[in-house]
């Protein structure tokens, strides 16, 4: 690197550094820095340890030192036994990495654990003034949740007064059994190291997954608001989950229906204007759908589709068309044309070649497009918020918001319980189909 380049980097870094310092400590009396904005007073029940950071830092340094001693001792002992000269630094470095990872895990999981704890706490004590009677500082400050009074009350209130028909119990059982079967098979295959797509166990697993999807879909589609007999808002939680799954599932299906033929045409046909149309497709993809939010709202209002799931699904549908078409086109281009050409020579039409030959091969891609749209829609808030009115048609996100922005009381326990339950479908989907997400999200430049 040349001197000038280094100098310019140093100058730029120094400028940014100065700005940050001023932002944190403030500039005289004209601008109050971040630190000056903290009032030096603790509310009742707030536990503050003077210079606690020094203890924490000291503890971390002590841990690092212990890791150093450990790695030095282990490597030295090994060297002595095997008569070799290996450095202890790699082991020490690994130990430090573990320490760093654990700290990061703490950061990532702290909110998760806190919300889990709050969901099992019927007294709302996450937001209480009084502190638990204990000598343990961490427990007393409620940094570590106190599970001694844990109960299912919050969860039970979410399921209060739901009248379930017997056929729904049967479907529920079927869904649960098939899901367990899929998970069991996945575990079994992983243990046996069976990674083949066409092994009999894999086929069985795919069929079970299909059965699960169908029973879950029927269950979701036929659950009606009339079955929720409780007067409490929170007892509609299952209905909100159902609404969200219904909308997300339909949007995902619609995405496949719209993008599959278009991707096929772009991949296999040669027609004038193909190139420019592809360009338009990817250009449109770069716009967040809700830039046209106001107009979509007015449009749906004129079509009397506000507060209907049809309207919401239609409004979502624009979002993935370009990306899905683009991805599916790329997928088809990676498949050899010889299979379809054989079919075409045998007298099949293009449509038959598409539906009989290519569609069965495309299942993984459809799963990806579906999941992408499914997960994205599940997390969507803004359109749902203006489209859907009335407790019965809310989605999970809207229901959650109702608990925390209630005018009279904030129901933290219920909020926490429904946040936990509401996350489960997506967490399960994400972890279950991790490789699809990882490859898909990081390959394209989309991120929900």
């Amino acid at each position, binding site marked *: 690197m040349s001197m000038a380049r280094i100098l310019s980097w140093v100058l730029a870094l120094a400028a940014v550094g100065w700005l940050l310092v001023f932002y944190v400590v403030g500039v005289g009396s004209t601008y109050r820095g971040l630190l000056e904005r903290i009032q030096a007073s603790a509310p009742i029940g707030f536990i503050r340890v003077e210079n*606690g950071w020094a203890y924490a830092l000291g503890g971390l340094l002590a841990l690092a030192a212990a890791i150093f001693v450990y790695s030095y001792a282990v490597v030295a002992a090994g060297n002595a036994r095997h008569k070799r000269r290996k450095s202890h630094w790699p082991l020490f470095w690994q130990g430090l990495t573990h320490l760093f990872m654990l700290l990061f895990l703490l950061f990532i999981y702290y909110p998760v654990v806190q919300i889990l704890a*709050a969901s099992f706490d019927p007294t709302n004590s996450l937001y209480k003034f009084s502190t638990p009677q204990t000598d343990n500082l961490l427990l007393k400050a409620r940094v570590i949740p106190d599970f001694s009074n844990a109960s299912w009350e919050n969860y039970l209130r979410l399921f209060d007064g739901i009248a379930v028909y017997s056929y729904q119990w049967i479907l529920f059982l079927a869904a649960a059994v098939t899901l367990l079967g899929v998970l069991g098979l996945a575990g079994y295959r992983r243990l046996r190291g069976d990674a083949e797509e066409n092994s009999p166990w894999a086929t069985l697993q795919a069929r079970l997954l299909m059965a699960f999807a169908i029973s879950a879909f029927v269950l979701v589609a036929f659950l009606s608001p009339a079955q929720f007999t409780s007067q409490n808002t929170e007892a509609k939680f299952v209905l909100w989950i159902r609404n969200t799954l219904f909308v997300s599932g339909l949007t995902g299906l619609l995405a496949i*229906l719209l993008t599959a033929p278009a991707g096929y045409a772009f991949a296999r046909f040669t027609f004038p*204007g193909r190139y420019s149309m592809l360009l338009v497709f*990817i250009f449109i993809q770069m716009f967040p759908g809700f830039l046209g939010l106001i107009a979509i709202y007015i449009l749906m209002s004129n*079509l009397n589709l506000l507060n209907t799931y049809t309207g919401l699904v239609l409004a979502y549908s624009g979002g993935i068309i370009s990306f899905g078409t683009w991805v599916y086109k790329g997928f088809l281009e990676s498949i050899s044309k010889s299979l379809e050409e054989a079919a075409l020579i045998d007298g099949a039409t*293009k449509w038959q070649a598409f539906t009989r030959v290519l569609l069965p091969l495309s299942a993984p891609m459809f799963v990806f497009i579906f999941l992408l749209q499914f997960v994205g829609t599940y997390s969507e808030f803004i359109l749902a918020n203006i489209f859907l009115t009335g407790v019965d048609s809310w989605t999970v996100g809207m229901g959650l918001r109702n608990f925390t922005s209630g005018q009279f009381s904030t129901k933290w326990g219920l909020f926490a319980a429904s946040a936990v339950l509401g996350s489960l479908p997506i967490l399960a989907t994400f972890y279950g189909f991790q490789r699809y997400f990882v490859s898909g999200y990081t390959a394209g430049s989309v991120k929900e």
Partner: protein
Amino acid sequence: MHRTPEGARGFLIAVSLLGGAVLIAALGGVLAFGALQGAFPRSLDNAYPGYLLLLFSVLFLAPLLILAARLFPFITDWYYLLPAIVFLLAFTVYPIFLTIYFGFTDYTGIKSGKADRSTETQIVRLEGTQLVLASDAAAALRCEAQNCAGERLEVTSETERATVRVVSSSGPEVELESAPPFTPKFVYRINTFKYIGFKNYMGIFASASSILWPVFLWNVIFAIFAVLVGALPGLVLGLLLNNKDLKFRGFYRTALIISWAMPAVISAQIWQAMLNVQFGPINRFLGLLGSYPIPWLIDQEWAKVAILLVSMWLGVPYWMTATLGALSTIPDDVYEAAKIDGASPRQMLLSITLPLLRQPFTPLILGSLAFNFNNFGLIYLLTGGGPAAAGRPSTAQATDILISWAYKTAFQWDGGQAYGLGGAISVIIFFITVFISLINFRVTGAFREVR
């Protein structure tokens, strides 16, 4: 096999065939809707829903498409594209153009082009083009002008409605430009919205120093830093986890992904609870480290820090995964060759790994920038745009970004909705997004990829 005629001519033929079919079908849908209402009239309170129009149009479209396929066999190739194109046009492109149009009007929740039900007045009789009302027209209809000249009125019977224009009125008598096609019973004044040119934009730029520029500045800072605070720790984690000797690396990787896997709509709200000033678990933890309660979400500047903190929590697993994915494509022999040449681990990192990461990271960074630039959900659910900033309206507060400003203007304006102004703001965002997209196109070479 039939093929579309070559060149621009073929393209135009195909597009005009498809466009013609869709237009005729839409026209047929409108006519069928009118015919339905005419044949089986329904009262206005229980009118036929508007989506029947869509259904009828689709019913008309099917035979038209079959007919077109008979006459021009090559057109069937285009049918595969038709659903995607129609949906894109109807629910993405058309709304964008409509929004641009709204940006030039004074469209609000009140001036909505709909009849004002509070001006309901009974009609005594209709004589030619003259309506005789039950009371004084100008007062009952609350006209702007003394004689109601130029006002648009909605007249209704039980099953029909029509829009008429007023020539003049005196007392209870109203002279219309043309007589309604039926005998009306009630009349309402229509709150029209009108084209106002660049007034919305002039308003935005006139108050730019207190609204547009601060919001835009924060928007840019937010987008850049949201990417940085996610990407830098994610890069570090990815590099650390790429060490094949490290135990539990699979576990760390899977466990850390949770904040990416959680639905953002839920995690944003969880964080709102975590960051509560008096009771929030984050402040309780910091209290143990010796901090007084930090005014997250209450103080203007701390709210921004809070947003970036949550962006970090949300973004790190994504970037960690992206780093690991990119690193897995670098072949091992590159490092082995470097080792033989006597390179230190630090040198390998600086001159092999990081430069090789640049190419796969560029599109991801640009995509993430564009995403965060319009990351409405996070801002709206975490801070709601607040806390209030002095000298700024409730629609553009301390942490509002452009898109949340547009949203709040359109739907949460003081006492109503300002669709026109919101549309104008959307158009400004639109131009900025086009700009970012064009850079993205250039840098990632999407143009070349298509060929």
